[in-house]
């Protein structure tokens, strides 16, 4: 129990983001309206982005925007600068998330025009006819 508590204190950011991921996952599985499923996907993606960005933090470090003249004269201490790679990769992930949401909303509009409803079970019944 003591080991579990010290683990939670050391890594509580991962636990929070896993809980957020599971909230999004539950929305994707259990809700019947298609728009709610789409927003579950969006919550899931946001939680993953935040988890990656929080994995690159260092204690007492500053953001990766340096002072040009000081770095060209003195050099830089790597442990004082936050890891920039997760930030870069997550910019791409944010853009992918926006694109997927846009395309999914367009497809939902066409489903609504075709079947007249956005509830999953009613659509399945109308398909079977």
């Amino acid at each position, binding site marked *: 129990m003591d080991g579990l508590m010290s683990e939670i204190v050391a890594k509580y950011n991962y*636990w929070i983001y896993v809980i957020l991921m599971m909230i999004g996952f539950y929305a994707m*599985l259990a809700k019947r309206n298609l728009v709610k499923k789409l927003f579950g996907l969006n919550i899931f993606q946001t939680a993953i982005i935040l988890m990656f960005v929080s994995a690159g*933090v260092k204690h007492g470090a500053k953001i990766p925007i340096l002072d040009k003249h000081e770095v060209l004269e003195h050099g830089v201490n790597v442990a004082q600068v936050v890891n920039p*790679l997760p930030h870069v990769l997550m910019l791409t992930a944010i853009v992918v998330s*926006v694109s997927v949401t846009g395309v999914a909303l367009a497809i939902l509009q066409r489903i609504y025009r075709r079947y007249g409803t956005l509830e999953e079970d009613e659509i399945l019944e109308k398909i079977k006819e």
Partner: protein
Amino acid sequence: MKKLAFVAVLLTGALLLYGTKDFPAWGDPMAPAAQHLSPTYIEKGVEQTHVPNIVTAVLGDYRGYDTMFETVVIYCAGIVVIGALRGWREDE
């Protein structure tokens, strides 16, 4: 259906939380993610590109190929939305 979803979510959450046992502690400067390539970008980034913002330097110069395909992805998303929603007559 909702109970089954709840059980599946709890199982997945428990597996993920068990997997965080191997992760490094939050804020560790000696984490493996900060060891091999990222010190090179921080140390050599400003003197090789004269750009003080390391994130922009990595995004535009060292990983410029990924950003190019990123632009193509969002352009394709725009085209798909135009193609899916415009101009179709309501058949049947």
